[in-house]
């Protein structure tokens, strides 16, 4: 038995969940969602929460719905829910192509979208998508009520977010991409299912053959995923072609300040960033 002792709480409503979090947050009480990051961390005893509030029994959180032009993803929605497009447009297609890169099937049927966002691993695919599309995170607690936090303020660093102690990330909202939006994703990892060394998300629309509404985000390379305006600017007002994609890749390479770890040096990671931006754009264009 590897994890340290804790008390287990199994609420069935959001109100009950918020009550429990308010009561136990100071005592290192945490949300248990899919457990696919939290339980390994507890097995290593890197985390020793005294209380776990298991949200798996809160059925109100299990919904994906479209509301006011946004896809609202509840905290109970698993990665595997996105394997078949959840929505008919380009967003549903993008999410279905991205989810195949997240871990493996048995992990995808437990792990949740919001859990990935709350955990904020630098190499999380959903975090990169959230950054690229300017997602909104809906956080709720008894103390601060409901807050909507934009992606650019949400991801603060390696596994660090703007969520307060005791806050439930109730849902994440992604803008529905208009018909005709081109969207692409690319990542590089050493083995299938591994965390990526770097990844890129790219979306744009065409106006008279020229690229507009350009969104490019890079994940895995830096402490937190973010959009890269330097790379986006290279492309706006230009027709999509390989030459200009290369220029954007080069701009991204220059713009990032990559993680430098013993097995993967910063320079190597920069090179991968360049390649992933080019591939994400190519995949968006095809």
């Amino acid at each position: 038995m590897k994890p340290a002792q804790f008390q287990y709480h199994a609420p069935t409503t959001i109100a009950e969940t918020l009550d429990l979090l308010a009561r136990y947050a100071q005592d290192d009480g945490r949300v248990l969602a899919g457990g696919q990051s939290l339980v390994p961390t507890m097995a290593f005893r890197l985390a020793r929460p005294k209380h776990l509030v298991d949200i798996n029994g809160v059925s109100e959180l299990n919904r994906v719905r479209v509301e006011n032009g946004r896809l609202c993803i509840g905290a109970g929605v698993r990665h595997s829910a996105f394997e078949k497009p959840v929505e008919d447009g380009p967003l549903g297609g993008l999410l279905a192509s991205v989810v195949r890169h997240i871990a493996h099937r048995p992990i995808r049927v437990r792990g949740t979208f919001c859990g990935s966002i709350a955990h904020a691993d630098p190499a999380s695919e959903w975090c990169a998508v959230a950054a690229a599309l300017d997602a909104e995170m809906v956080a709720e607690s008894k103390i601060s009520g409901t807050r909507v936090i934009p992606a650019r303020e949400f991801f603060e660093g390696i596994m660090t977010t703007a969520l307060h102690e005791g806050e439930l990330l109730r849902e994440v909202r992604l803008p529905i991409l208009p018909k005709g939006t081109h969207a692409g994703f690319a990542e590089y990892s050493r083995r299938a299912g591994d965390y990526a060394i770097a990844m890129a998300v790219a979306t744009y629309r065409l106006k008279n053959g020229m690229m507009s509404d350009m969104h490019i985000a890079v994940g895995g390379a830096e402490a937190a995923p973010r959009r890269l305006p330097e790379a986006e600017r290279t492309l706006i007002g230009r027709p999509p072609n390989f030459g200009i994609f290369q220029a954007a890749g080069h701009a991204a390479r220059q713009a990032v300040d990559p993680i430098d770890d013993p097995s993967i040096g910063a320079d190597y990671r920069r090179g991968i960033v360049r390649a992933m931006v080019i591939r994400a754009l190519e995949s968006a264009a095809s």
Partner: protein
Amino acid sequence: MSNKIDLTLNINGQDHAVSVEPRKTLVDAIREDCALTGTHIGCEHGVCGACTVIVGGEAVRSCLMFAVQAQGKPIRTVEGLASGKTLHPLQRSFMAHHGLQCGFCTPGFLMLAVNTLEKNPAIGDEELLDVLSSNLCRCTGYQNIILAVKAAREDMRTKEEAVAG
């Protein structure tokens, strides 16, 4: 200090009344409290897949779930595959195609493959490979595991066609 919880785990159709701490993972409860040691433990942090069992119809890592979370859900382990002395088609296929050497990873691979083929008997080669890439084997080099699962897939398909007639 112990804060044990009483629960009932339904494994292969049989109820097991156990009393466990919340921190006990499902795999530990299956092995230690239900005395079903067919399910193996490798890494205990979700990487190897040795602990794969089917919970509520989905193959999952039982080292990444607490036993208390599996209450009320049907659990299937490798012990439930054979009926009496007759092995499951996948078990026979693993034997016929040398899908195991030391056998440590086998229960996990079997449960993963059974769940996958039951859900989608017509699964394509590429998707099958993607699913199987989830588990680790230190002996076989994987080729014979893949061969065994593919053969079982054909086997189970022909049987279905025969029934559909």
